[in-house]
């Protein structure tokens, strides 16, 4: 664990969709350069947590967010330029989303939005991000091909390359391996281990063992509540306070 100021500080966060409570009073800290795992069964509020971090409620009239989210100590609801916030936060969804444009354009999209116009600079970003997402060797000869026609595993690495192209300080991954074969999953996991040297990662996963392999600390969400947060090794070695956590990681429910 890293002992400096938290990258992300969440206090008493609640998310509702209409009348349906999705997240109920969560408080936690994520520190720089760690992989913070979030585990929990379906409908426990994991995805809502990620959506709130990116202020996605502004695109969903039904979604209300209460509580405080501090990004490097700054309240994100007070950030006027929400687009700059979203550029600092990269997101990878459960199902790969290759935008219906060329592979090159997929990765160059965010840099272009940020105002980068020079071809040489864009070329460099595209190559660097595709290399880091372990996709470069497979696509370097066909960067003009449609990103949406790649295989599922390739599209997911393309999505990661795209998230990296924003130069994010925080990378959010939402069950990224659902539609990906085991070999690709392992390759992406290796990529994540390297990435954490530079950025902070929040990894939502429904694979308990994935959290164990990757996360420095892990939080357990259950029925819209945060049950507890602990060092991942403690969580899996049974040194946890809550019986429900132990039952979940040992596969007795969920």
């Amino acid at each position, binding site marked *: 664990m890293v002992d400096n100021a938290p990258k992300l500080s969440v206090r008493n966060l609640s998310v509702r969709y209409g009348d349906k409570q999705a997240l109920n009073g969560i408080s936690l800290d994520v520190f720089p350069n760690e992989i913070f795992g979030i585990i929990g069964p379906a409908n426990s509020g994991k995805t809502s947590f990620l959506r709130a971090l*990116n202020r*996605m409620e502004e*695109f969903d*009239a039904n979604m209300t967010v209460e509580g405080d989210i501090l990004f490097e100590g700054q309240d994100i609801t007070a950030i006027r330029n929400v*687009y*700059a*916030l*979203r*550029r600092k*936060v*990269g*997101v990878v*969804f459960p*199902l790969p*989303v*290759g*935008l*219906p*444009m060329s592979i090159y354009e997929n990765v160059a*999209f*965010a840099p272009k*939005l*940020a105002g980068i116009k020079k071809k040489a600079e864009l070329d460099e970003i595209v190559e660097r991000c595709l290399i880091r997402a372990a996709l470069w060797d497979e696509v370097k000869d066909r960067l003009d091909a*449609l990103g*949406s*026609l790649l295989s599922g595993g390739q599209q997911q690495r393309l*999505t990661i390359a*795209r*998230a990296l192209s*924003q130069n994010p300080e925080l990378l959010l991954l939402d069950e990224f391996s659902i539609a990906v074969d085991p070999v690709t999953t392992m390759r992406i996991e290796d990529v994540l281990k390297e990435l954490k040297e530079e950025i902070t990662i929040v990894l939502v996963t429904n694979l308990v063992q994935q959290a164990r392999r990757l996360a420095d600390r892990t939080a357990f969400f259950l029925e819209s509540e945060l049950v507890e947060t602990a060092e991942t090794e403690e969580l899996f070695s049974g040194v946890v306070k809550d019986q429900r956590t132990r039952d979940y990681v040992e596969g007795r429910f969920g």
Partner: protein
Amino acid sequence: MSLFARTGLDEHNRRVEWLVKTLFLLMTVLLIIPVALIMGILIQRGAPVLSWGFLTEVPTNGMTAGGIFTALIGTVWIVAVALLASVPIGVAAAVYLSEYAPDNWLTRAINLAIINLAGVPSIVHALFGLGAFVVFFGFGRSILAASLTLAVMTLPIVIVATRESLQAVPHAFREACWNMGATRWQTIRRVVLPNSISGILTGVILEVSRTAGETAPIMFTGAAAFLPFLPQGVLDQTMAMSLHLYVVSTQVPDVPDALPFGVALVLISMVLVMNATSIAFRIYLRNKRKW
């Protein structure tokens, strides 16, 4: 008795299956009969009058001889001006309704209004155009007044087609863009519109056919039964194919039998050529982009 022998129930199901399939096939064939008949009769009876002169000469002898040049060009004017007015407005409205509008009473009222607008009979649009564009805005009987009347009438076609095709673009694409810090407009311009352009074109194709063929709305607002010259601008009156067809079919004595069929054949061919062009363009676009 063998394992897979047919029971009475199987036999019954098989007969029903055959009956249903044949019935549906028959209905489908019925569908093409009117189209085939119309085209067949038009070609058989109208083809003899077709010539280069028919297309490039003005009508003469009280419209019983000569060509249809002024009506042909007039229809091109009317369709072009109507599209210039309705496509930008329709597409912008559809983008707003699909991408920006919150789900509240105002949005629902607008959607209801669009549906109702589509159901208004064309003669009512004609009277509306006469009151609004000819008299109130003072455009007089002119191409502008006629085209705006047609634009109002065909707006629902563009709006509905555009909105449907925008909504066919997967929501995940939008979320992906928003998460990268794109604004709604950047998302629409870079991802949503390029991928719905073929659906929007379909709406425009439908609109062109409708606009070129309508008679009532332009009769009071800007189309003249006979003019010996071409319009010089949008404030001039003009002849139009649809009205010309109506006039030579019913209003003028001693028209040669073949003439109205020739006019109808040219009108239909015009629409078909425009449709074919747009369809070809649409296929080209669709092959370029997919997901």
